[in-house]
């Protein structure tokens, strides 16, 4: 076990994916964002420079190129940059890639990974803070990974690359510098569609995605001080969604807070809450609370940003309401 940043763990995962399969190529190199550890990323360039292509700023064009390459024997990982830029490539990400396998009735597969940085990052303002995962969830045929820890990002990037399906891989700008333990002596593989209980508890379930896992853990600490035992469940992937793990926890606690950093309306938390309300109805002893972004674009200044950010405190408050 070694403590490392999320960025470094992602770089290690990408290095391992490249080493494992020579058809893996990178389009762009903006993974890990501005905090990427130069030592590790340098190693990546040195070892696999010929498999890294730096495309022009033409998201639509290069995402399409990645789809075409995926149809013909490569496994591209595409760095789109901030989630907002993925809207420029929507025709390829949401209209071509997810339909290739289905539309051809299984004749062709499209093993491409679209990587994007999402979330409220600190003065990213409206066009550099977008988290589009909810929209991709409404687009059948896309797998969606939202890893929240170094070990998870390393394992899931490899699973995403190995998957024969197009995968949306979303990290969060504020995750990059966060530290966590990674076991470099093992493969660290994590299958898609398996949730992880990040903390066990008995009074309330907090379903948390991506950066919210950390805020949920922080909230759980503070709830513990108040005598409330919170269980933190991290789905890790939205598609496939490990409903069983979530429902198991709900069956135990009967109370749920869904914590997610996308806008509330038709957001990730809505789908998770609706699913629990539908399939876990009999277990529920209180309404499910959603802690998400209100329906506003992400503003520029910190005070405004903080206001819209789903924080640990807001998780605590939501839990208090349903536990009382």
């Amino acid at each position: 076990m070694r403590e490392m940043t999320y960025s470094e763990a992602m770089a290690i995962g990408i290095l391992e994916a490249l080493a494992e399969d020579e058809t893996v190529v990178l389009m762009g190199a903006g993974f890990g964002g501005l905090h990427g550890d130069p030592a590790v990323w340098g190693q990546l360039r040195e070892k696999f420079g010929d498999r890294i292509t730096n495309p022009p700023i033409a998201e639509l064009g290069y995402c399409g190129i990645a789809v075409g390459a995926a149809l013909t024997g490569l496994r591209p990982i595409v760095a789109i940059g901030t989630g907002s830029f993925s809207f420029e490539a929507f025709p390829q990400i949401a209209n071509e890639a997810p339909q290739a396998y289905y539309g051809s009735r299984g004749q062709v597969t499209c093993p491409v990974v679209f990587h994007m940085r999402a979330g409220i990052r600190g003065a990213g303002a409206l066009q550099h803070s977008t988290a589009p995962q909810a929209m991709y969830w409404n687009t059948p045929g896309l797998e969606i990974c939202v890893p929240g820890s170094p070990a998870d990002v390393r394992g899931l990037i490899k699973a995403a690359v190995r998957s024969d399906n197009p995968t949306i891989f979303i990290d969060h700008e504020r995750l990059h510098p966060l530290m966590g333990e990674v076991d470099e002596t093992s493969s660290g593989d994590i299958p898609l569609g398996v949730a992880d209980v990040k903390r066990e508890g008995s009074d309330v379930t907090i379903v948390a995605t991506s950066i919210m896992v950390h805020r949920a853990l922080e909230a759980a600490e503070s709830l513990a001080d108040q005598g409330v035992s919170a269980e933190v469940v991290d789905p890790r992937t939205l598609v496939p969604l490990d409903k069983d793990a979530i429902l198991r926890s709900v069956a135990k606690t009967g109370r749920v807070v869904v914590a997610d950093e996308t806008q509330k309306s038709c957001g990730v938390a809505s789908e998770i809450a609706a699913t629990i309300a539908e399939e876990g109805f009999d277990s529920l002893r209180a309404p499910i609370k959603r802690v998400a972004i209100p329906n506003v674009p992400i503003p520029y200044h910190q005070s405004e940003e903080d206001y819209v950010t789903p924080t640990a405190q807001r998780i605590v408050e939501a839990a208090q309401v349903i536990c009382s």
Partner: protein
Amino acid sequence: MSSTMDITTEDKLDLLRRMVLIRAFEERVIDLYHRGDIAGLVHVGIGQEAVAVAVATSLLEGDYLYGTHRSHGHFIARGADINKMMAELAGRANGYCEGLGGSMHLVAAEVKAMGATGIVGGTIPLALGTALAHRDAGLVVAVYFGDGAANTGGFHESLNIAALWKLPVVLVCENNGYAEFTPMSEHTVVERVSEHCKPYGIPARTVDGNDLLEVLEAMSRAVEHARNGEGPTMVECLTYRLRGHYIGDPAQYRQANEVAEWREKDPIERLTKQLKSERALDEDAASTVKREADERVEDAVRFALGGEYLSMDAMTARVFG
């Protein structure tokens, strides 16, 4: 000013003052950024001031302007209030956008500076739309973009539509040789962005973007062309940003000698030298220009840092008009 032929020495001094003000503003922005008073992704255009001033000078009051992610200079040259600009960068309610937009999303509608954007090439279609709205009114719309934007689909769609509909728009390419961190040779096959205009019959010129008077001359013709109803044109200004892509970018992707060469071509130095050789400016006067600019910027900083923040109710009320 309709033509550079009429430019007086006093005009030139005024152009210099504006460039100096932009430079002073942005240098202070860098300082405030490092002090933590300004946050986020902030892109400065130090070294590109001549384009900003020339473009703004060529436009009339009723004309419109669209910017990019690197637009402080564009807006200041256009006459935007630097107090409200600085306040916006500092995220205050007394800023142009009440702190909701920040550096990348400046809008100063009072001077018809309609918007910067964080999306490369994103304002080009917007400019076309504004031109469409006003094409019968004799108004002109100028829109900035960089060499990187010339690879986006929206740019090419816009060339076609602007030509097809003969829109009164001037496409101002600030070709600073880099698309974010990538040199032009690695992102496109064309030597000059203006080459893309040929198939559509759009008149295009490539000029020395650090020579204010040359840009002004080209811009004046382009604006006149648009105002006469003759359709779009492109003015490609070869220039250079002396700093990194954003504040904090160490810019290790470029050679020291390249930067040094461009420092020699600093547009402010060039015009200063010219005015000195014309005996229109001496050392004292030059320092006065600088001092006055610094003082105005200090006022702006005081205005900005003294500003309140928008209330959260007001913020949520801004989602719909």
